C-alpha cells in the first residue's frame, strides 16, 4: 500500500520555495532553511505569505503533488493544478454514469451504506467502551434503540430505487443518530440539541461544520488526484461551483469526523471559552484554538485503521484517496460495484 507520503505544511512567513534538481528548497531571506527530496512528497500546504517558484509548481503538478494555499488561519485560498492532471476517459465515463439513474442510485446507495454503517459504529463503539459507566438507564436504552433503528435504515437502503428515497432514508438515519448524539458528550459545558448549519450556533455544531469542511477538502483533493471530476456527483445534485462528488464521498467519512469531535470535547482538548459568538448568534472557533485543533486533525490523519476491502492497515489520511481509487476503478469497469469504507 502506498505509504502516506509527507505533506509539508509551510507556516514560515516570507518563505521562498524553489526546485533544485530533484529537491525542494525552502529559503528565508536567501538563507536555505530546509531541503527535501521532492519524490518523498505528497502535498504542499502553504499558510499565509509563502511564495513558490513556477518551476517547482510545474514539477509538483506533473508528479501529482498537490499545492494548496491557505491563509494564516487555514482558510482555503487556491490550489495549483498542472497540465497532466485528469483523465478525460474516466471523467467522460463519470459524466455518462451520472446521466444513468440506475447506476447513480447504485453508487449513492453504497456511499450512504458506508455512512450509516459508520454512524452505527460510532454508537456501537460508545456502548462497548462506556456501557458500565452509563448510570442513566434511559440513555442506555436510547442508544440501544438507536443502534437497532440504524441497522433497519441500513437494510432499507437496499430497496431504494431513486435518489429521493435514498435521501429520505438518510434523513431518517440522521434523525436517529443526531437524536442520541448528545448522549455521547461527557462534558457538561457542551450540549448538542440538533444539527444546525449555516451558520452553526453552538460549539458542537461549529466544530462539526469546521471539520466537515476540511474533510470535504481532503475528499476533493483525493478525487482530483485520481482524475475524477469532484463537481460531478451521484447523490448530491449538480450545482455550478459545488464539489458534489466530494460531498458524496465525504458522507461515509462524516462519522469519523463526529467521533474525532467527540473525543476533542470529551478529552477537553477544546473547551467552551475557545469559541466566540457573533451578533447574529453564529459561533466560530477563536484563532489560537483553531490552530491547535488543526494540528490535532493532522495528527489524527496519521493514525492507522484497518481497511476491510484492501485487507490492510492504512493511515486515516489515505482513506479518501483509496476510496477515490475504488470509485475510479469501478467506473472503469474493474469491479461490479463501488464499495465504501466500512469502519470496524
Amino acid at each position, binding site marked *: 500500500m502506498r505509504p502516506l507520503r509527507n505533506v509539508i505544511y509551510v507556516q514560515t512567513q516570507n518563505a521562498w520555495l524553489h526546485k533544485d534538481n530533484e529537491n525542494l528548497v525552502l529559503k528565508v531571506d536567501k538563507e536555505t532553511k530546509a531541503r527535501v527530496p521532492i519524490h518523498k512528497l505528497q502535498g504542499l500546504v502553504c499558510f499565509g505569505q509563502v511564495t513558490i517558484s513556477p518551476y517547482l509548481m510545474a514539477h509538483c503538478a506533473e508528479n501529482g503533488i498537490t499545492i494548496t494555499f491557505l491563509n494564516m488561519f487555514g482558510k482555503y485560498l487556491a490550489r495549483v493544478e498542472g497540465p497532466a492532471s485528469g483523465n478525460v476517459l474516466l471523467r467522460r465515463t463519470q459524466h455518462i454514469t451520472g446521466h444513468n439513474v440506475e447506476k447513480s442510485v447504485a453508487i449513492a446507495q453504497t456511499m450512504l451504506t458506508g455512512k450509516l454503517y459508520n454512524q452505527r459504529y460510532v454508537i456501537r463503539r460508545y456502548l462497548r467502551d462506556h456501557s458500565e459507566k452509563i448510570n442513566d438507564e434511559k440513555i442506555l436504552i436510547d442508544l440501544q434503540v438507536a443502534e437497532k433503528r440504524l441497522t433497519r435504515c*441500513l437494510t432499507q437502503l437496499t430497496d431504494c430505487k431513486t435518489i429521493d428515497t435514498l435521501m429520505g432514508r438518510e434523513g431518517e438515519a440522521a434523525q436517529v443518530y443526531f437524536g442520541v448524539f448528545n448522549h455521547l458528550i461527557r462534558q457538561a459545558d457542551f450540549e448538542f440539541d440538533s444539527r444546525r448549519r449555516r451558520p452553526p450556533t453552538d460549539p458542537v455544531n461549529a466544530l462539526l461544520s469546521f471539520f466537515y469542511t476540511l474533510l470535504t477538502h481532503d475528499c476533493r483533493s483525493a478525487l482530483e488526484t485520481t482524475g475524477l471530476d469532484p463537481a460531478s456527483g451521484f447523490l448530491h445534485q449538480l450545482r455550478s461551483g459545488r464539489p458534489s462528488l466530494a460531498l458524496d464521498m465525504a458522507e461515509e467519512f462524516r462519522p469519523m469526523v463526529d467521533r474525532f469531535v467527540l473525543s476533542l470535547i470529551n478529552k477537553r482538548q477544546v473547551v467552551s471559552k475557545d469559541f466566540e459568538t457573533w451578533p447574529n448568534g453564529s459561533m466560530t472557533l477563536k484563532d489560537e484554538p483553531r490552530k491547535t485543533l488543526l494540528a490535532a486533525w493532522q495528527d489524527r490523519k496519521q493514525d492507522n485503521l484497518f481497511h476491510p476491502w484492501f485487507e490492510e492497515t492504512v493511515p486515516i489520511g489515505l482513506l479518501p484517496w483509496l476510496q477515490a481509487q475504488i470509485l475510479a476503478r469501478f467506473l472503469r469497469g474493474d469491479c461490479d460495484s463501488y464499495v465504501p469504507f466500512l469502519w470496524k
Partner: protein
Amino acid sequence: MIKQVALEPIYLSRLQHYLYCSRQFALIELENIWIENQFTAEGQVLHQRVNQADQQKRGAVRTARALRLANAELRIEGVADVVEYHQQADGTEIPFPIEYKRGKPKAHRADEVQLCAQALCLEEMHGVAIPEGALFYGEVRRRHPVIFDAELRNLTLQTIIACRDIVQTNITPHAIYQARKCNGCSLIDQCHPKDFGKSASAWLAAQLKKD
C-alpha cells in the same frame, strides 16, 4: 467510442510498457496514470544526457541525438536516443539506432521491441533496410547488439496492433497479479492487482450480513 483515438499514433516508449504488462500500458495510455519510482527516476537521469537534440560527425559516422521518428503507415512515433548513420563503401548511409536503458540486458524482449520499432520508423523515413541496432545498458555500460530479424519484426508488429486494440476499445485489461512483475511496478498502488479480482457487490452484501 471516440473515433479520433484510432488515428493517434502510439508512442514507441509505450510498446515496452505493453510487453511488460498490458494493464500497465492501459493505465498509462488510457488513464493518464504515471508514478515515478526509483527505477523510472534513474531512467530519467540517464536520459538527461541524451535528451539534448544535436548531431555531430566523427569519421565515417554521423551521430544524431534525440531524433524524432515516425512511421505513418504503422502510426507509431517517438524519439530515438541516438541514431548513428554508418557510411557504406558506396557513399550511402545506413541508420543504426541505439537506445539507452538503465540496468542490464533483460530476459524479456521489451527493450528490443522498442528498438526494432525505431528501426521500422527509420526504414520508412529513409527508404533503406536496417539490419541491426544496439541497446546501451547503464549498469553494465556496454552496447548490446540487436539484430532485426523476422521474428523480432513480427513481435514488434503484433505489439503495435495489440496496443492499438486497447486504445481503440478503450478497455483497461484486468489485473493479473504476478509478484515478480507487480512488486517492481511503479503503478502497483494505482493498479491494486490483488484487490479487484473479487466481486465487490457480493463482498459488500457479505459484510453487511455479518453484523
